[in-house]
């Protein structure tokens, strides 16, 4: 039962225990007595001894979730930033479009009710109260795969699904020319295309989840509801090379470009942005040991870890994948803001950094990361080598502000088995990209010049994107470009735990059977005094490198 408006108060997160200054203890150094460390490696979790002196960066503990998420949402809708409350912007007969973040976040998927369901229920109720009938719900997939009916039902909830699916609740289709509108060009010549339904609406409401600081802001609408014609202006090697890092919007050319587009969109559209932030409680219950400092493991934690490893090792790959992808995280909502996009996003960003940021002194010679079983583009699917590359070099390398965690010319060790394994219905163009394009060149600029347009306009891939559940034909290129800043910065990339060395070689990486071997390979060149940093996952951490 909702409380009367007069009794609503802004709910604040208990912040005292999470001051950034108190986070020095999130960085520890391995000594002789230190426990082994958990390292994600595809669909397994390794438990490996790291060399003495290795610096391990831990994610901060989860912030306390808001005590009453529904009340906080209601408060945000009634007290938006730099805009009138949602109800005050409504009138009967107006056309409203609600765009919703797709399945690519949060990762893993969150327990029900999903934040998007909570947001939708309140927004739809407000619209109904004010007689607004012309409402469409669009999943902002951009060039991602179409979400299935079951996936959509899960994130929007039964109420919205029953009322709107399938005529007024659907996936955005970036190849439906009749449903696209060009709004103009930015001062930099970037074409701004958008969903026609959104562009023709009197009010566009965007429901966002910020899992990392890269998400949200102008990027939500300018990317989520845009086709290839728009995305190619910032999803390209030149722009991404100028992004330091993706997690620092102030120093990211990608964000500058999407901000320019977003501002142009705002000139012609009335947008009510709702942004939320979640804490880092990825694993709870029987798996909560995954988020602990291993030095503080109890016997029960070690037993559970051993049991978890044994179970994963002894399952068929299909069953293991199904088990992992069906796991739902007990994320807690740590903030919700509504109103003007830029103001809302600044507040959301501050909260996200409050959750993730850890101060770190200096860069390392060698950075170790573990690529887990999931990334934004393989939910309920296979983590293929291109996505492993994107997660390692694209996302995990970019988990920094100011300077990368590894020095220029340094070595990055990426733990992943790198199997030549693709999902034929989700990632068809990835297969051709991997087997046809990468053998010719790994140079992102060359790939863009030679192959990108052909893949983007390939009729079969377009068909599979529109009517199947395939990522757009151009998507593997974007995944490859995503790793471009890391490729420009690093001297070597070594895949540890690699099962198929030819896969690593095709991507320009070296292969090692084990993490020990990878570290030995790295230190053989840099010397035994080389500094090593391990970025501990899960959950997530952003290093403020001094």
């Amino acid at each position: 039962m909702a409380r009367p408006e007069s009794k609503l108060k802004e709910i604040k997160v208990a912040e005292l225990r999470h001051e950034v200054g108190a986070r020095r203890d999130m960085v520890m150094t391995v000594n002789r007595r230190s426990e082994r460390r958990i390292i994600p490696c595809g669909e397994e979790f390794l438990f490996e001894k790291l060399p003495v002196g290795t610096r391990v960066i831990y994610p901060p503990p989860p912030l306390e979730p808001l005590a009453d998420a529904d009340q906080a949402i209601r408060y945000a809708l009634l007290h938006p930033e730099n805009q009138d409350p949602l109800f005050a912007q409504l009138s009967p007969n107006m056309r409203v479009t609600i765009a919703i973040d797709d399945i690519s976040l949060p990762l893993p998927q969150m327990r029900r009710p999903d934040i998007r369901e909570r947001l939708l229920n309140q927004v739809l109720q407000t619209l109904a109260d004010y007689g607004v009938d012309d409402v469409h719900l669009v999943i902002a997939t951009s060039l991602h795969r179409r979400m299935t009916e079951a996936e959509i039902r899960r994130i929007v909830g039964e109420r919205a699904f029953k009322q709107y699916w399938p005529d007024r609740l659907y996936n955005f289709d970036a190849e439906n020319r009749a449903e696209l509108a060009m709004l103009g060009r930015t001062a930099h010549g970037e074409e701004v295309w958008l969903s026609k339904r959104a562009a023709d609406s009197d009010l566009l409401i965007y429901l966002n989840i910020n899992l990392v600081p890269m998400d949200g802001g102008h990027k939500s609408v300018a990317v989520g509801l845009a086709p290839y014609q728009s995305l190619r202006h910032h999803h390209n090697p030149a722009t991404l090379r100028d992004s330091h890092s993706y997690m620092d919007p102030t120093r990211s050319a990608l964000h500058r470009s999407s901000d320019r587009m977003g501002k142009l969109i705002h000139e012609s559209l009335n947008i009510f942005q709702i942004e939320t932030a979640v804490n880092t409680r990825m694993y709870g219950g029987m798996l909560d040991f995954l988020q602990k400092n291993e030095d503080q493991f109890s016997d029960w934690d070690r037993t559970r870890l051993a049991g978890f490893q044994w179970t994963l090792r002894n399952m068929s790959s299909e069953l293991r994948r199904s088990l992992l992808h069906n796991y739902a995280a007990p994320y807690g909502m740590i903030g919700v803001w509504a109103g003007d996009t830029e103001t809302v996003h600044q507040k959301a960003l501050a909260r996200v950094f409050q959750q993730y940021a850890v101060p770190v002194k200096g860069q390392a010679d060698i950075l170790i990361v573990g690529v887990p079983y999931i990334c934004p583009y393989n939910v309920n699917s296979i983590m293929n080598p291109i996505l492993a590359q994107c997660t390692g070099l694209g996302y995990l390398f970019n988990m920094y502000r100011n300077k990368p965690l590894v020095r220029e010319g340094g070595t990055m060790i990426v733990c992943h088995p790198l199997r030549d394994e693709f999902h034929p219905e989700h990632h068809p163009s990835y297969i051709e990209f991997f087997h046809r394009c990468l053998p010719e060149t790994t140079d992102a600029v060359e790939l863009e010049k030679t192959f990108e347009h052909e893949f983007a306009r390939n009729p079969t891939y377009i068909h599979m994107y529109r009517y199947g559940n395939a990522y757009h034909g151009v998507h593997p290129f974007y995944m490859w470009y995503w790793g471009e800043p890391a490729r420009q910065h690093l001297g070597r990339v070594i895949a540890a735990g690699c099962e198929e060395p030819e896969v690593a070689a095709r991507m320009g990486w070296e292969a090692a059977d084990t993490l020990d071997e990878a570290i030995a390979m790295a230190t053989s060149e840099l010397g035994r005094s080389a500094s090593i940093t391990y970025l501990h996952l899960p959950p997530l951490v952003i290093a403020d490198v001094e």
Partner: protein
Amino acid sequence: MSVSRKAANGARANLGRAAFYDLDGTLVSLNLVHAALFMLANVGEWSGRLSHLVGFAARVPHLYLAERRDRRLLNTVLFEAFKGVSRDRLFSLGEEYCERIMIRNLYPRAIELIEANRSAGIAPVLVTGSPDFIVAPLARHLEIADFAANRLVYGRGLATGRLAPPVMAGDEKAAWCARYAAERDIKLADCWGYADSHYDTAFLAALGHPVAVNPDRRLLAAATNRQWPVIRFEKAPTSESVFSNDDAVADELREGE
């Protein structure tokens, strides 16, 4: 080569690349047995029809076993049922079957895909085990210039029940595609192939871009194993076509470059 010729309305497109389409189960939601039954049920007077249908029914166990063993054998057994039917009658029934049944059962999105491929300079070619008297009118309807189909042998204007070699099934489809490509200086590596049955695995494997369409269990396993894309066509489209606007999009993209 079983059949390789220009359809009446078909203008030969840019043949730098080709897309080879299987027919039954791939472009159309029917199979060869359905077509055979239609033919035999309409082949002449009622007594003749009865005789053909009874003959066909007697062949059912043989057909079942043939289907389990080899697609080529199935075709051979199935076409024996047409023995004694006049060539003219078969071609006239083929026109009727195409017009009344087949066109209505084409997957709408399959047609979109053919057109989109054609717009992208990938010329369509039908490669099917169906008989030429059915495939020819369909190829005309789809404006597909070239096709390979099975041909009956005729004696004095009547079908002998035998198929003229090569019988379009299994490896023979791949061999036909290779000859077709070689004659036109096309690289098979640049060609696309679409089929639905595990009997077409060799045909798909011969092409650079194989796609499993509504695959049966064994083709799906092969496609997954060989990392071939999988497409599923449905009978009723749920959204309107946009490929007619593809040129407009291409123009806009060119403008932006």
